[in-house]
């Protein structure tokens, strides 16, 4: 953990702050989530740091709780997408044959439809609840993780050291967990950061379209939807989530970049 570059450090700090805010939201938030505490769209003041929203709730409170919802959904969906995608991807790469063919062709098909469109199609018949959102987003996105995990694992399985283990008589479990996984971990962790950002953007977009988190619960996309009418009157309340999403996404990106660079440098050897 020594020698963390400054950019990665900034990324780590900001990511940490956002996650802490999400975890301790009820303790930090100055008001209640649905509490109406003032006029419509009050400007920022010492009482309401970010002002109030379209029906007079404290915007900072909404933002903190919104962050909690957004980050929770994104984290859960990322975990789902990773477990599904990585397990199936490794399986396809090591077993090969028809298992690989069937999984890969199915993923090709899933990816032939843009995920937002596919999510909309599914959400038109499913009840829009948080578990359903996590499930739909996680499974749709697991196709990308599958492709990466499979590609990484295939690259590793053709290495001579895997063949050497196979010739030694090692079982599949040893080969997956001792030979392939340690070498596949870093690119997957870096990808996890990118998938998390994508999930944040995805759930925000769905909420903005009115097909994600349902009121009165708050999330960053929903806050934009609630306050978008203010924009034409020059009220910037709807833009705060832009700031939050962008800083979170950039911080996670910086961390992911660092993880990825560490991986590639390990392969490089002594620079000779």
């Amino acid at each position, binding site marked *: 953990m020594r020698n963390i570059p400054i950019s990665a450090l900034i990324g780590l700090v900001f990511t940490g702050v956002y996650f802490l805010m999400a975890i301790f939201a009820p303790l930090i938030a100055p008001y209640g989530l649905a509490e109406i505490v003032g006029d419509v769209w009050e400007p920022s003041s010492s009482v309401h740091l970010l002002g109030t929203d379209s029906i007079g709730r404290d915007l900072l409170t909404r933002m903190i709780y919104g962050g909690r919802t957004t980050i929770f959904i994104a984290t859960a969906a990322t975990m789902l997408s990773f477990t599904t995608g990585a397990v199936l991807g490794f399986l396809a790469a090591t077993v090969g044959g028809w298992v690989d063919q069937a999984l890969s062709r199915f993923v090709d*098909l*899933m990816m032939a439809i843009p995920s937002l*469109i596919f999510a909309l199609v599914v959400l038109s018949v499913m009840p829009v609840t948080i578990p359903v959102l996590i499930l739909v987003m996680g499974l749709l996105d697991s196709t990308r993780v599958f492709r990466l995990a499979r590609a990484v694992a295939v690259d590793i399985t053709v290495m001579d050291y895997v063949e050497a283990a196979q010739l030694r008589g090692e079982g599949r479990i040893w080969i997956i967990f001792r030979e392939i996984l340690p070498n596949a971990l870093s690119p997957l962790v870096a990808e996890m950061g990118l998938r998390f950002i994508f999930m944040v953007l995805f759930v*925000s977009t769905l909420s*903005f*379209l009115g097909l994600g988190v349902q009121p009165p619960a708050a999330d960053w996309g929903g806050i934009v939807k609630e306050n978008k009418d203010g924009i034409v009157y020059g009220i910037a309340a709807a*833009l705060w989530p832009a700031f939050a999403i*962008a800083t979170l996404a*950039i911080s996670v990106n910086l961390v992911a970049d660092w993880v990825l660079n560490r991986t590639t440098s390990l392969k490089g050897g002594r620079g000779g």
Partner: protein
Amino acid sequence: MHPVLKLVSQRLALGILLLFSASVLIFVGTQILPGDVAQSILGQSATPEALANLRAELGLNDPPMTRYFNWLYAALHGDLGTALTNGQDIATSMGRRLGNTLFLAFWAAVISVPLAIFLGLLAVRYRDRWPDKLISGVTLASISIPEFLIGYLVVYFVAVKLGWFSSVAMINDGMSLLEKLNAIALPVFVLVLVVLAHMMRMTRAAILNVMQSAYIETAELKGLSSFNVIFRHAFPNAISPIVNVVMLNLAYLVVGVVVVEVVFVYPGMGQYLVDHVAKRDVPVVQACGLVFAGVYIGLNMIADIVSILANPRLRHPK
């Protein structure tokens, strides 16, 4: 058969197969999932009789296979069914909206593609110097913000604060081209911003990849000017990756359009789809899903075919 012809026809067949499978997937997604369409439409308070009637009316009691093939058969004949919510013919309502969406996407593409390639070349030319760093910083930021927020940022700063253009993009048949262009200026701007970042990053990577090839060094050691190195040696080999990048991002544009239309209340396909998802109007959602998937699959197919055609190994077999 010439190998190129063979590959291209294979790719075409694959595209048709994918489109067919996508239609199955969309149908399965809306009809066979545990959600009940009739229940969704009528809500939790519906009486069992009303539910049964609606099910019969929608043909929900037929076996799924029958329903699918009925739907597909009708769709292939241009009959996309009628909307549940207002009973209108979907194909008719969609026709004009599709035109509007393509109009928007066309202008976004016309501006963003050359711009992205130009900026990508610029980033490569000044690699690791300030133009490159500036470009990659800006793209990182714009990739990190969802499309709808970029839309509102633009509305807030350009339409409201500066007072340029309207924040709502209404167009109708009575408008002249110039009026229409004026109306869609902001949504096009937002779409360009959204697509540009991805397209440029990928163009830069594609060109860099070509520029690091040994034959570029050969060209430099022949004493060619940078212009000649790039246009005689890098460009012919970069066409295929760049076309790929462009097509992938045009496909991305298809999705971006959905959200941007909602932001600017633009009467296009995206708006139409989102409205009817909220109303749980399944036939409309299916039809829109199919059209979007078709465009997406078509663009990806073109990308693949171009890279087959641009490959000298395939064009001039041994």
